[in-house]
């Protein structure tokens, strides 16, 4: 009887393990991080040189469209190539899609209309990205991602309390440290996992 109970327990463990399988090679983090930090650097230049603010919106419209196009292309590729399509990977993908769409609404509708003051945009973006990182940390089962969420929120709070041009550069630093760097770590892990995989 205990043998059968053990079998049933191991079947449940197998299901739980499969359900939590999450393949992430970090390239979305790296791509979005690089696009965003390039955009923020360009924005800082435009603002400090007192060029037209329209250039800022045009720049971000192009960068966001590019990011979405890359995301859709990689998403299709990932669906074809993932060893397993799991609930965890759908949840991560849906969380980041939701966060990205929310940010598009907040920055373009809120920022461009003036409902959200342009100086508050980096703080708001930082706080919302923190929600994404926090929601995904449970699925990645990574404590550093939880700490990254806390850092996004702390950065967001600082930017909202003490607004100014420096927030653009602070945001770029957060993006490099909390998006690009974890993306590179995930990429290295994915490469190591692929290398240790026996041939099919």
């Amino acid at each position, binding site marked *: 009887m205990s043998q059968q109970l053990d079998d049933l327990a191991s*079947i449940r463990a*197998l299901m739980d*393990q*499969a359900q939590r*399988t999450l393949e992430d090679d970090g390239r979305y983090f790296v791509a979005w991080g690089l696009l965003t930090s390039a955009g923020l650097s360009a924005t800082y230049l435009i603002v400090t040189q007192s060029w037209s603010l329209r250039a800022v919106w045009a720049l971000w419209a192009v960068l966001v469209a590019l990011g979405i196009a890359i995301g859709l292309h990689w998403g299709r590729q990932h669906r*074809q190539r993932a*060893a397993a*399509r799991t609930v965890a990977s*759908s949840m991560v993908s849906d969380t980041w899609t939701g966060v990205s769409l929310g940010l598009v609404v907040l920055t373009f509708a809120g920022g461009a209309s003036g409902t959200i003051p342009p100086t508050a945009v980096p703080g708001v973006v930082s706080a919302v990205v923190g929600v994404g990182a926090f929601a995904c940390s449970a699925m990645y089962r990574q404590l550093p991602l939880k700490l990254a969420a806390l850092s996004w929120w702390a950065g967001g709070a600082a930017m909202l309390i003490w607004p100014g041009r420096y927030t653009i550069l602070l945001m770029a630093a957060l993006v490099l440290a909390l998006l690009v760097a974890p993306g590179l770590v995930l990429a290295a892990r994915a490469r190591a996992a692929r290398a240790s995989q026996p041939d099919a």
Partner: protein
Amino acid sequence: MTEFDYQQLDDVIHSRIRLAAMAVLAAVDDAEFTFLRDRVQATDGNLGAHLKRLEDADYVAVEKAFVARKPVTRYRLTARGRRAFREYVKRIDRMLRAGQEGT
């Protein structure tokens, strides 16, 4: 019919490899053959034969495709397979509980 009637158990599922493969597939939307093999820890030939049995019973659906010029075989549970798996787990669980209460 008693709780211990072995005929209640679906013998298509009642093999350790098929049960494990069904369990993995019940937890995902679909999976590649290699993913299943690594989880179930069976050999290619053995797992392939068991998956064929599940396919013949219409418990799993198979999709073969070429991805980056490599052949890839993906498996998913059919609605019938999902129902059968749920029923199997429920029955074996009930049987084991009844056994525990009897001891």
